């Protein structure tokens, strides 16, 4: 093959790969919305499921999803942002920081089913939390921790160095400098990490089903078992309880994912503009 032909063939193939991936994405989104949206209305969102989810709505699963996500965020964000602050502002590259990074990177690669097994034996059984919002939320917090650490660290590093110097020159202590200069500057990036974490919490199934259970009741406390939307979707779909209700739940999930991505891109856009 001549150089010119191979150039043309390769370029065409790469275009085909790029465009067909986009086509695949749009197909996925439109297919789920097309199958699911007809079932979604205010009553579907705000009423309780009847006969195992065959009819009725998904309200308790929305509450369950929100509760789990909230617990996960409340725990993972201080831990994750704190780790990022320590790594960037309080220490230099050393064996210790490499060890901490190794832990973060490895945790990011651990499959959700392993988190599920761990959460089950540790939170549910050993700490006697039973299947609950607390056990599920703590498990999710561990899962999203690496995301929060990475995005926060990147955002904090992007804050210009002279701003820190200026703050020190004005007599600020390190912590004052962090809270008045670094964190406000890195806020959009940190929020991006949080929103990514929310996205992961909403879509997670394997870890949640083993730690929060699949009870369809409305939770009354942090120790109540709940069923999230993703788990509800899985059970309806897999056990063939109701395709219509399953796709309806799936459509709500996909809409959440789309909204989250819009927010993230808006935030990233803001960061780029400011720099």
């Amino acid at each position: 093959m001549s150089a010119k032909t191979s150039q043309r063939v390769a370029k065409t193939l790469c275009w085909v790969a790029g465009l067909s991936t986009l086509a695949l994405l749009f197909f996925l989104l439109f297919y789920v919305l097309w199958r699911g949206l007809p079932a979604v209305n205010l009553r579907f969102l705000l009423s309780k499921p009847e006969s195992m989810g065959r009819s009725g709505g998904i309200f308790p699963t929305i509450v369950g999803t929100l509760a789990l996500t909230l617990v996960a965020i409340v725990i993972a964000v201080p831990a994750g942002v704190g780790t990022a602050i320590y790594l960037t502002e309080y220490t230099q590259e050393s064996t210790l920081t490499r060890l901490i990074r190794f832990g973060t990177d490895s945790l990011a690669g651990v499959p959700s089913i392993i988190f599920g097994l761990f959460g089950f034996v540790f939170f549910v059984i050993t700490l006697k939390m039973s299947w609950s919002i607390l056990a599920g939320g703590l498990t999710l917090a561990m899962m999203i921790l690496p995301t929060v650490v990475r995005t926060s660290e990147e955002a904090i590093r992007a804050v210009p160095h002279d701003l820190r110097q200026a703050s020190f020159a004005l007599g600020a202590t390190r912590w004052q400098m962090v809270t008045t200069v670094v964190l406000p500057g890195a806020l959009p990036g940190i929020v991006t990490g949080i929103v990514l974490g929310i996205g992961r919490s909403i879509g997670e199934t394997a870890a949640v089903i083993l730690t929060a259970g699949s009870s369809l009741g409305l939770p009354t406390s942090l120790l109540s078992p709940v069923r999230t939307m993703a788990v509800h979707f899985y059970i309806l779909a897999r056990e063939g309880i109701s395709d219509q209700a399953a796709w309806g739940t799936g459509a709500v999930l996909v809409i959440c994912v789309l909204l989250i991505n819009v927010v993230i891109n808006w935030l990233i856009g803001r960061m780029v503009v400011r720099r």
Partner: protein
Amino acid sequence: MFRERLIRYLLLLVAFSALGSLALITLFIFKEGLPLIVKVGLWRFIFGSDWSPSRGSFGILSMIIGSLWVTAGALIFGVPLGVAVAIFTAEFAPPALTAAVRPLIQLLAGIPSVIYGFVGLTVLIPRIQRYLGGPGPSALAGAMVLAVMILPTIVSISEDSIRAVPREYRDGALALGATQWQTIWRVVLPAARSGILTSVILGMGRAIGETMAVIMVVGNALAIPFSPLQSVTTLTSNIGLEMAYATGDHRRALFATGVVLFVIIMALSMSASVMSRGSARR
């Protein structure tokens, strides 16, 4: 000043949360799983092909092979496609298109795995059955669904490493009269190879560890597969399905399966971090 010191120590403590989590997970998964591996014997556990919890027979060979089939298939479909997309966005696409494509590829990563599973079940499986034969739910279906799921990992890391190749490399090759594609193939890709390999290893980890999507499309038959159209069970799908009701030794055997999975994943994580450190040094 006391307050500053206190804050420093608190942050140090917090900084260990990820590492501590990893340690706790390792400890508890091994504590639950290892005794059964010892009882059955490592060799018989891994190379035994009979899994009958009711008779106390625990061999996970068919699941290991099932996992290998779907993961290898996912890489066969996903890596060429993902690298091609990365080359497209980094080298060929006009900047405006690249700016639009990047967030869309990331959107692919945000779609919950159960959605991939159910779309695979309703769209892909009937077509596999009609056009290729077999029962439908199969290693092939699992591989195709996983290939899409690992695309974001492969595309984003490969693209970053392609972009990180210095401009002068390209200019040098082009100045010598190479076409754009010769430049990419002979200069850019070799220079970006450690990043691309890292993306493949991380994608592989995702494919091996994925559970819910796989459960929905592979059929979960407990036999050693001989064709990609046969139904398989993977390490993860078996844990995901049987944890719902397992007790006693059966449950411990599922944790033992988790131990095997965990060791594979940690080995992949470590090679990925060695690999990316190699590229950072260059």
